[in-house]
């Protein structure tokens, strides 16, 4: 600790703290442009100069660390004059086109000049202009260099946080310009973090260009509805139209960063095709109806059906309150145990995944995982699926030297920050983790005498496992060496483990071995739907009740419900926000199965394929149109607020569930709460893990830029449950023949799920799916980038353009999930998690 005197006030701060941070801590604001808490200091803007006793020259406070006993002045006449001088220099070549600048009104330069600047401008020379018109850098970024203040935040955020490194300085002196190579179009993540950090209107959003002024916008705190990272952001609207989403520095785990989906993908909310009124099927056709008509219709139809013959399916993008109310409606009002929250995952696999990734023991901060000695990123295409976790890992590994190991089938951006990148065979992750566990066990056998579960190693041979994983023994040795030399090991449990269930057992084995070796093991689930973890914790699973308690009666999962529907086992379905027909899970055709039902009730925002065949469709609301909470993958419970009313007659799902419950049940107060806080208080009672969660802190901006608010992490769940044992754990792969490829799937950087395809900006960034394969495979097939290829499975085939990937394993092709026109799910027949396809030039 060091004691410093700032403006006469003594305070004590950690050694090595920068003067600027120490001053902010003490409540003294020092103006700055180039300083940004997460970025490396450059000390170039010279706004933050302070006087240090005993030093003749003014010192930049953003790169000077405090020393014990330092006496600092921040408001002397000399400093005020220096600030004025620097601001005058900034303005001398600044374009001063504030009236047409999109940043006008929220510009740091404007604020700074207003607060500290000179009263009059004395610059009467010609201004240097880089270009006459703004130019487009990417489909979402537009650039005006004439306004630049050369703080280099854009270059640093691109390099240090995002890891794309596509921006740099051109020219020298006053001709220096931060832009892409020769101002060409950027081939980057289009995340727009350069826009967010830019203090002036130099980098601007193209979709928001000339749409509004900041003072017209009304914004509210919400959470990104795409992946499960749980990024906090502010969505802003004008006259009912959501115009932009932005992140705030110091708020949420993401601070100022977002990915392309989060920052530009919120415009789905303005889609004119959204449902605005309830629809009821009359004479075989869906017709608009009033709410009371629709509710009467539902009551009439559902009351005749026995509870157990109703299936319930809710989307993992609903809030905790909606999911909780829904499961309560299904289980107690309707008396049906059949409830699930995904069309993709098998509930038994999910239960094992929950147990293996230690979700029941409470939340784990992503910062703890990133600050571990070794971070083993496996089972996820992290840089594409959860970009913010990738940013956090990159930034922290550069800062604290976390060793990152990436194990994946395809190359990813995090490779550049990883000390070790392993490309294993598809479906080989389980074998790789088992091999690592085995090799750790064998090298330390004497230390692990009493290791429980030795029998799990029986019949395992390193050579066979390495063959299955497609990894060399040197690579394995490198992994185990890193594990051995680390005190804390963080393992990620990505969604690939849910796809290939084999990995789940291997993850458990590896973590047990590491724990037995005395290491602290942190398992970070990496999920791809905003409230997937919340849905599980709310008990929207056939076997689990809220708070990870075993359900009193085990019901049917999604696949079983569809099979039951086909076989006449159930009569009605209640679907919220999901589209089993459009997503078409494997096996029986969902369309044929659902056609046999006597009643389908759908709550959704769009007329999906399922909604189109429903008997009654109720229009729902998106985040920003409702209050509620999401639980992200870490177990962090975060609140979001309502910004605007849903369009037309649409209502929040919670209100709809309450109304449906109201007309179905004669006993009042079953789940008729429409206030999300009331429901959350009920959740606190039902799921003890949520009892201590604080929601208040979430919306407060933290002065010290501490992003990790642990009060929001869910606690450990009591009771516990025993997952249903998985029947088999052989890699469910077909044998690959000559000229055939393994097919893998997943999300892309710009699209996850159906929602993103309603966003015009994201569709503009990536419209259709592409077939990704390695360069060697492509040249063997005579394919080059952009050419069309025909992919043939057992009973489905599709033609896709080809995209080459340098760092992908040979013998594997990748097609993304949920793209319109490409039903990649149909390649996955029941029981096969790794199908084999033929690829031909078309």
């Amino acid at each position, binding site marked *: 600790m060091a004691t410093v005197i700032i403006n006469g006030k003594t305070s004590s701060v950690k050694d090595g703290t920068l003067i600027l941070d120490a001053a902010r801590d003490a409540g003294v604001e020092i103006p700055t442009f180039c300083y940004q808490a997460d970025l490396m200091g450059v000390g170039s803007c010279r706004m933050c100069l302070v006087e240090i006793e005993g030093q003749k020259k003014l010192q930049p406070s953003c790169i000077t660390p405090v020393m014990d006993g330092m006496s600092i002045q921040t408001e002397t006449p000399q400093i005020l004059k220096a600030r004025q001088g620097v601001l005058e220099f900034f303005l001398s070549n600044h374009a001063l086109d504030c009236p*047409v600048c999109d940043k006008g009104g929220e510009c740091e330069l404007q604020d700074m000049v207003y607060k500290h600047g000179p009263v009059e401008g004395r610059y009467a020379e010609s201004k240097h202009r880089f270009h006459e018109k703004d130019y487009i850098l990417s489909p979402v970024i537009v650039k005006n260099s004439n306004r630049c203040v050369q703080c280099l935040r854009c270059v640093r955020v691109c390099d240090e946080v995002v890891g794309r490194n596509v921006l740099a300085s051109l020219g020298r002196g006053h001709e220096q310009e931060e832009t892409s190579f020769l101002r060409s179009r950027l081939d980057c993540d289009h995340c727009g973090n350069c826009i967010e950090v830019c203090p002036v209107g130099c980098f601007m959003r193209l979709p928001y260009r*000339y749409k509004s002024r900041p003072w017209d916008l009304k914004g509210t705190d919400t959470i990104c509805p795409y992946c499960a990272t749980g990024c906090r952001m502010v969505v802003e609207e004008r006259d009912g139209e959501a115009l932009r989403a932005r992140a705030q520095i110091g708020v949420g785990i993401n601070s100022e960063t977002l990915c392309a989906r989060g920052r530009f993908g919120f415009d789905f909310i303005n889609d004119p095709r959204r449902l605005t009124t309830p629809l009821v099927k009359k004479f075989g056709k869906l017709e608009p109806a009033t709410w009371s008509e629709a509710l009467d219709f539902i009551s009439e139809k559902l009351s005749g059906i026995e509870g157990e013959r109703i299936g319930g399916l809710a989307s993992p993008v609903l809030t905790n309150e909606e999911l909780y109310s829904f499961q309560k409606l299904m289980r107690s009002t309707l008396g049906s145990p059949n409830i699930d929250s995904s069309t993709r995952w098998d509930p038994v696999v999910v239960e094992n995944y929950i147990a293996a990734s230690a979700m029941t023991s409470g939340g784990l901060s992503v910062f703890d995982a990133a600050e571990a000695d070794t971070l083993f990123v496996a089972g996820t295409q992290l840089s594409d699926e959860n970009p913010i976790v990738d940013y956090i890992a990159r930034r922290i590994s550069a800062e604290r030297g976390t060793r990152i190991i990436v194990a994946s089938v395809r190359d990813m951006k995090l490779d550049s920050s990883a000390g070790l990148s392993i490309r294993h065979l598809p479906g080989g992750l389980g074998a790789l983790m088992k091999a690592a566990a085995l090799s750790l066990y064998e090298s330390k056998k004497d230390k692990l005498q009493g290791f429980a579960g030795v029998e799990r190693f029986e019949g395992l041979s390193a050579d066979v496992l390495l063959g299955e994983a497609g990894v060399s023994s040197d690579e394995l040795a490198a992994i185990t060496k890193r594990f051995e030399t680390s005190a804390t090991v963080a393992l990620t449990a990505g969604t690939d483990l849910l796809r290939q269930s084999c990995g789940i057992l291997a993850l458990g084995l590896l973590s047990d071995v590491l724990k037995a070796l005395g290491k602290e093991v942190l398992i970070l689930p990496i999920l791809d739907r905003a409230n997937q973890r919340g849905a599980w914790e709310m008990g929207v699973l056939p076997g689990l009740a809220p708070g990870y308690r075993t359900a009193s009666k085990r019901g049917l999962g999604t696949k079983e419900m569809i099979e039951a529907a086909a076989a006449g086992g159930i009569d009605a379905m209640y679907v919220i926000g999901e589209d089993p027909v459009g997503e078409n899970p494997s096996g029986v055709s969902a369309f044929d199965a659902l056609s046999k039902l006597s009643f389908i009730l759908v709550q959704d925002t769009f007329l999906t394929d399922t909604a189109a065949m429903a008997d009654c469709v109720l229009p729902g609301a998106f985040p920003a149109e409702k209050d509620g909470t999401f639980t992200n993958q870490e177990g962090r419970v975060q609140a979001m607020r309502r910004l605007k009313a849903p369009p037309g007659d649409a209502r929040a799902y919670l209100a709809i569930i309450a109304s449906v419950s109201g007309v179905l049940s004669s006993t009042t107060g079953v789940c008729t709460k429409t206030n999300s806080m009331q429901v959350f208080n009920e959740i606190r009672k039902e799921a003890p893990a949520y009892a201590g969660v604080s929601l208040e802190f979430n919306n407060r901006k933290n002065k010290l830029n501490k992003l990790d608010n642990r009060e929001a992490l869910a606690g450990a769940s009591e009771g516990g449950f025993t997952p249903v044992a998985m029947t088999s754990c052989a890699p469910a792969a077909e044998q690959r023949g000559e000229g055939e490829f393994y097919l893998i799937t997943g999300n892309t950087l710009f699209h996850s799920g159906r929602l993103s395809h309603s966003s015009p900006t994201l569709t503009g960034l990536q419209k259709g799916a592409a077939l990704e394969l390695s360069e060697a495979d492509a040249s063997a097939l005579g394919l080059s980038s952009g050419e069309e290829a025909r992919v043939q499975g057992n009973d489905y085939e599709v033609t896709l353009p080809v995209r080459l990937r340098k760092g992908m394993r040979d013998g594997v092709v990748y097609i993304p999930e949920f793209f319109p026109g490409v039903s990649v799910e149909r390649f996955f027949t029941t029981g096969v998690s790794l199908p084999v396809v033929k690829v031909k030039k078309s």
Partner: protein
Amino acid sequence: MNCSCGVGKRIKDFVKSALFLDFIKGMHVTLGYLFSKSITIRYPDEEKWIPYQRFRGRHTLNMTSEGKELCVACELCSKACPTDCITVIPMEDDTGIGITDRVAKVWKVDLVRCLFCGYCEDACPTRAVRLSREYELSTTDISRTKFEKRELLLPESVPEQVHGGGIAKAKFVRSKDGIKIVANLGKMKKMRW
């Protein structure tokens, strides 16, 4: 009590009333106007008052000599407006390919709320908004009190080049579009204030 009544005063009053002196004094102003030039403006049938240049009437939006709108839709007028009567929504000009200029998609003023203070004029960085000399705003149709950009961009009936105010010969024209008072600015009598 001290009384000022006396014989002298009574004689003085008698002479005054005999000669109607008070009456003449009282009529002096009236008679003066009887023979001076008339200041009545025969509005709207024959004449029309043209306000002085600094008069603040209905808004207009100016254009450059090439016919390009000066307004860049910065919304400063609407921000400066004390009664919130101006609505501006910007957009990107669709005349060019790619990046073009900022223009107003909507520039609307609600004259019922406007108090003609002229703050919008002061706030305008491009001198696009100006309060013109249009003052014939009375209407029986409430929708006619809201003016859109399209109308505001039309040339003023009294161009800026006409200096000073005065009374112009005018014609009262009734047409299917409504009533119009067409002034002949060439024959304008300067007014002395």
